[in-house]
């Protein structure tokens, strides 16, 4: 709502010119923050056929297009998806597949998820969109008490495995309390669902397709700050990236760094900084699936390096880093050279003007890493 309204005026100088009459346009431009990360594209994938440059929202559209093309039962629904979605993830799909397959619902998240569960119970593929992860909470009961438990409680007579919920996730520079949240930890505590978070367009398409085809209800969080900012070569044809498999995107020997989504690019940069300034070799892991998570890959890495740093935007207390930390110290206690470090958001709601101070940026991660090395 508010987000879209301001987008129309951006780049015109209107808001700034009118509201800050004493400032020059240049000052205002300098005051706008630079992104806290640099997106690092992966090398062009060769094994999936022809590729095309796509940003994150385009790679999502591509995955959805592939899904609706090969699965005649698949439908996409949510608020504002018909015209293309507030982040343009569903552009063109209604025209291509029809209004019975790509349609708006009333403004009601508990309805969207409940409705999606019902479609999935009949065996059809339901792809629900929750406009912002911040608004997923009205649907929490349907997700946790219903979707996650459908198969178990019915003795496998019924299930809603063909349900996927997609939702924009994470900080975006100006999102504040209700357009920036990373709620994965709430759902990590819920056996029966899968939670997946991609770091890039190529990862997003493959992981989303896997979620849609997975026989369990999945939540797919899409880092909104990457929708435009991340662009790389992505295969046009469908392909799958396996769920519950973390990826070691850079091998190293001294410290293991674990993150997911946007934060992977932050820790990648931290790894470079560590190499350059401290001569430290970092192993960088993108967790990709939050639950069920790939314990073996992370533990194997920590057994090798002896040091672990986990970083996420979500608040520290009860954040998913605590689960990783707890499991790793159980499994790798004698291999640890230093306490496990968590660099996370503070235990506050996500602030607006203070965002640059709130987020676990590369300097905080670097500092924590330095302390771990010197422990």
């Amino acid at each position, binding site marked *: 709502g508010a987000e879209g309204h301001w987008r129309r005026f951006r780049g015109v100088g209107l808001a700034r010119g009118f509201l800050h009459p004493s400032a020059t346009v240049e000052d205002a431009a300098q005051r706008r923050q630079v992104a806290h990360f640099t997106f690092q594209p992966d090398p062009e994938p060769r094994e999936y056929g022809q590729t095309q440059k796509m940003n994150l929202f385009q790679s999502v559209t591509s995955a959805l297009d592939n899904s609706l093309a090969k699965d005649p039962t698949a439908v996409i629904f949510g608020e504002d998806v018909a015209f293309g979605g507030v982040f343009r993830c569903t552009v063109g799909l209604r025209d291509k597949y029809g209004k019975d397959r790509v349609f708006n619902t*009333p403004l009601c998240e508990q309805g969207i998820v409940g409705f999606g569960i019902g479609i999935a*119970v009949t065996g059809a593929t339901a792809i629900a969109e929750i406009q912002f992860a911040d608004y997923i909470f009205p649907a929490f009961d349907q997700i946790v008490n219903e979707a996650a438990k459908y198969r178990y409680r019915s003795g496998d007579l019924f299930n809603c495995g063909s349900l996927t919920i997609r939702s924009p996730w994470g900080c975006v520079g100006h999102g504040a309390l209700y357009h920036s949240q990373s709620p994965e930890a709430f759902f990590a505590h819920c056996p029966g669902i899968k939670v997946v978070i991609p770091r890039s367009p190529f990862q997003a398409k493959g992981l989303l397709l896997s979620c849609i085809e997975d026989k369990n209800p999945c939540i797919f969080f899409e880092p909104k700050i990457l929708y435009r900012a991340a662009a790389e070569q992505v295969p046009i044809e469908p392909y799958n990236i396996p769920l519950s498999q973390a990826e070691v995107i850079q091998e190293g020997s001294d410290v293991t760094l674990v993150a997911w989504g946007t934060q992977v690019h932050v820790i990648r940069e931290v790894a470079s900084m560590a190499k350059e300034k401290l001569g430290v070799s970092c192993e960088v892991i993108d967790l990709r699936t939050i639950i069920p998570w790939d314990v073996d890959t992370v533990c194997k890495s920590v057994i090798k390096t002896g040091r672990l740093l986990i970083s996420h935007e979500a608040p520290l207390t009860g954040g998913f880093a605590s689960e990783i930390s707890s499991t790793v110290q159980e499994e790798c206690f004698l291999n640890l050279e230093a306490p496990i470090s968590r660099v996370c958001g503070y235990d506050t709601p996500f602030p607006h003007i203070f965002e640059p101070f709130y987020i676990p940026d590369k300097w905080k991660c670097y500092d924590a890493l330095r302390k771990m090395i010197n422990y």
Partner: protein
Amino acid sequence: MAVAIAAARVWRPNRGLSQAALLLLWRPGARGLARSHPHRQQQQFSSLDDKPQFPGASAEFIDKLEFIQPNVISGIPIYRVMDRQGQIINPSEDPHLPKEKVLKLYKSMTLLNTMDRILYESQRQGRISFYMTNYGEEGTHVGSAAALDNTDLVFGQYREAGVLMYRDYPLELFMAQCYGNISDLGKGRQMPVHYGCKERHFVTISSPLATQIPQAVGAAYAAKRANANRVVICYFGEGAASEGDAHAGFNFAATLECPIIFFCRNNGYAISTPTSEQYRGDGIAARGPGYGIMSIRVDGNDVFAVYNATKEARRRAVAENQPFLIEAMTYRIGHHSTSDDSSAYRSVDEVNYWDKQDHPISRLRHYLLSQGWWDEEQEKAWRKQSRKKVMEAFEQAERKPKPNPNLLFSDVYQEMPAQLRKQQESLARHLQTYGEHYPLEHFDKRGLQCFPDFSTAEAPPLARMIYP
């Protein structure tokens, strides 16, 4: 307005500008519209026409200040076919069901009643942990079930066992679920009365209230897309209708044009909460039109009224792809559950009135008697026979072991995650050492490799788990 005028000067609208943006910059009205470019306007309205143009409502103007008074003194009338003595009131409304079918209705209701009595008692004796009876509402179950196709998908709340009974769900399986024994298709995972049956298109019950309502709508949407010619029926109580999920379900069903019957059992109470504390409007039927839903209120204790309404709703829901709301007025004669003693909040006289003067079973029995399709002798014989059937199933259910403890871990996901398998192995190892402190003698242990002493093919000896 100053902002808009300043904006208008700075920013010239271009061809790509949407209608909405135009309206932000220009004040609507005769002069404003005259200045806007006619070829860009998408709406067909003339500025000289005084009719309302709002997209949000199709209505005339009124110049008198008047609030709509909700009518709760004389609410939506209650459709019935039989009087309280089981006599048809208006012959043209008689569904003329064949004798077979009416007997099936009667026997389903009475068998359910018998099973309820025995299982309620079994909870009191500590044989099962919990139970909910259906006393007084049997008519809502069988009347509606009889009007559906066998393949119509049913989403229930928890007090619809008669639907399953009508669909010939065997006593053995009702009991298996209540006992959580090895025959339970639900694998012992849920509290009693949380039945489910894929074969009979009855989605497994869950405890959270009203969650099934938007789910039923989704299932109906999928049925519509599949051209399945099926309706989905969704049962819920008047209390559950207060949940947000109910509002969500109704609104989605209407906007997305789903072939669904919403069947509300208004039985007067949500545990101890009477309807006067549940809502202040004219029940649930009155809410339907607010969503654009065809609605009716029926006498839930009149099996034929329930049948007729459901039959017609089904026909039209499938033919026209629109939802129907049936509010079946009835009375919960029993306690909410075995955890409830309703004498704490209602009088015995009130309960007795419904039990004696307005009961779906007795009304239908009067009808049967008047048709010459039933008599006292058959009634006696049937009572004896149904009790015998129930007792046999009950004794069998008691004797069976509980399912294998490994089933605690399966079906969380379609495939078992590695971490969960580790936990399963951890329990197995724990039981190797501490097994004596667990009620293992009641459980099937076949194939549990950690129990070398019990890895026989025989079921364990008769043992009764007692619940405190």
